[in-house]
């Protein structure tokens, strides 16, 4: 057992006595008010801190919005320039076409120009939609085929579409090869299937019934078919070589087939999901 502290000295004793009878410093009567005030002060400080955080977040958000707007504007500008460049290339090819020494040379220029035009058109559609990641597939198909059809000036050929692809979108990376393949197939038909200048050209797009998720694109004519009597083969022309290469890029299957009993040829492209 140890005694606590030594007995208070008279001076200490006086101080203790003062505090006991309530006259010393800190001898206030019990009051919750200072505690409450402190709590309120704490809460107010916390509120200010939170408001500050909210302000910072709002500033950061508008800064991010500004950055996104800037990036979008930049992206639009880039696509615009790409499209313009395609047009310049197209003009250069036109010039080349005018200066071509032979019909074959002129045809080569014309085909190249047509391919460049198709790519330019894809960019045109991107710019018009103001969406740079994806393209609406139906519009793309119509735009590609319409452009070729009107350029071919085959007034007696009847063009029809059967497109069931509600709101189907493709990424730009897949849309450009698909547009080029479609352009090759449609050009082939327009160039070879209507020797008399008349006939029917049908473009179909939809999901394959026998392969869920697979998009099937078909270009059909009612022309006489290849002079050889067979079907067009890969590597038999630059166009088909291109189709082969682009389809491989898309991991898509393609083929030419007879249209049932009647005349005509059908190009089919199957794009898996």
């Amino acid at each position, binding site marked *: 057992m140890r005694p606590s502290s030594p007995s208070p000295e008279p001076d200490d004793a006086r101080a203790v006595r003062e*505090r006991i009878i309530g006259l*010393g410093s800190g001898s206030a009567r019990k009051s919750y008010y200072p505690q409450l005030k402190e709590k309120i002060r704490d809460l107010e400080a916390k509120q200010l801190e939170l408001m500050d955080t909210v302000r910072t977040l709002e500033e950061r958000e508008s800064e991010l919005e500004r950055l996104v707007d800037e990036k979008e504007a930049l992206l639009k500008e880039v696509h615009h320039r790409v499209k313009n460049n395609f047009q310049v290339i197209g003009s250069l090819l036109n010039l080349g076409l005018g200066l071509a020494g032979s019909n074959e040379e002129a045809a080569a220029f014309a085909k190249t120009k047509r391919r460049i035009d198709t790519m330019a058109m894809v960019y045109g559609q991107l710019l018009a939609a103001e969406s740079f990641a994806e393209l609406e597939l139906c519009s793309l198909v119509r735009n590609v085929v319409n452009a070729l059809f009107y350029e071919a000036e085959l007034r007696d050929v009847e063009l029809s579409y059967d497109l069931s692809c509600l709101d189907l979108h493709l990424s730009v990376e897949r849309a450009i090869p698909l547009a080029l393949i479609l352009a090759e197939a449609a050009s082939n038909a327009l160039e070879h299937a209507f020797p008399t200048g008349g006939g029917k050209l049908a473009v179909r797009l939809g999901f394959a019934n026998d392969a869920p998720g697979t998009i099937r694109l078909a270009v059909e004519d009612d022309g006489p078919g290849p002079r050889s009597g067979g079907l067009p083969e890969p590597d038999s022309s630059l166009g088909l070589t291109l189709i082969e290469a682009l389809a491989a890029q898309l991991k898509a299957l393609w083929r030419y087939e007879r249209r049932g009993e009647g005349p005509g040829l059908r190009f089919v492209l199957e794009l898996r999901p």
Partner: protein
Amino acid sequence: MEDPFVALRKFVAPEFIFGRGAMARCAEYAATFGASRPLIVSDEGVAAAGWAGRVEAQLQDAGADFARFYDVSPNPRDAEVMAGAELFLRERCDMIVAVGGGSPMDCAKGIGAVATNGGHVLDFEGVDNVPQPMPPLVCVPTTAGTAADLSQFAIILDLARRTKIAIISKGMVPDISLSDPETTVTMDAELSAETGMDALTHAFEAYASNASSPVTDLHALEAVRLIAASLPLAVERPDDLAARSRMMMGSLLAGLAFSNASLGVVHAMAHAMGGLLDLPHGLCNALLLEHAVAFNCPAAPERYAALGEVLLGRPLTGAPADEIAGVVGEGLAELRRRLGLGERVQIEPLSRRAVSDLAAMALADPCVVTNPRRPEASEIEALYAAVLPVA
């Protein structure tokens, strides 16, 4: 000495409701303090007498949820306070209702101090060492003596040092006392006598204190008058509500007096002795008081003359100090004998070393600073020898 009517003083007292039925206001005050979950602090004896259950029922009827802490021993221990504070925080309580005598009420004060300030209850030892006020505390006293329901004092047993520590702080004054004399009729004769002598000692020491004031004097003398007239009756006729009520009023007035004027050497010695020997606090006071009067009287004869006149109803003012000490001491001894409290503590003799340790602890007690005469260690030892067997 400065004119006591000129000297700067203050008087601290809680709100109190006194009289039959006061206890029934408990739930009302729980609502007034916005409590959603009071902690009821009581002890087994008070629970067995049915008073804790009465408070529980009142809170229940008012639709209040509550928690209970009844593990309080006589001379409440620091570990009990810590367990109670832990329960208070764990049960997310927001108010304390203390039901009982000094032990549950002091324990409740310690619980409150720890609940708001953290740390250990012994950290608050001394004067004004409780920085933050405790949660609202409603006291329902069931004894007439301690006045812990009114005072700024809480006495806790430091079990490791085997001594009682005093926590004295304005923040320890309860918010309200609901003093219902009916709760005191279940006390047995011994408890009634011991607690009653505690109240008388409060009045004596507050009046003789060197920090007394006109307001504390008023309360102290009236307390002595009421206690002298009613204590023997309350002990002899436990169901006498008139005597019980006068005793409870005496305890209340003595409490108001000592809470503001503080105490003296009797309490300083009783804290040390009660802590070491785990004796009833009232008994220690009852045995020591007459010896302390004899010791103090030369320093404040007019004070003891006034106390003696009220206690015994005979004129003493102007008499020599030794005569006053003799008359008052004999009057106190007579009262003690009538109450059957004995002459000395019946224990194995203590060593001289133990008595000198007790004296050192008594001298370190804050109550000693307001004693009218500054005691030396040897004088304290001599006072102890008057009530304790020494080898």
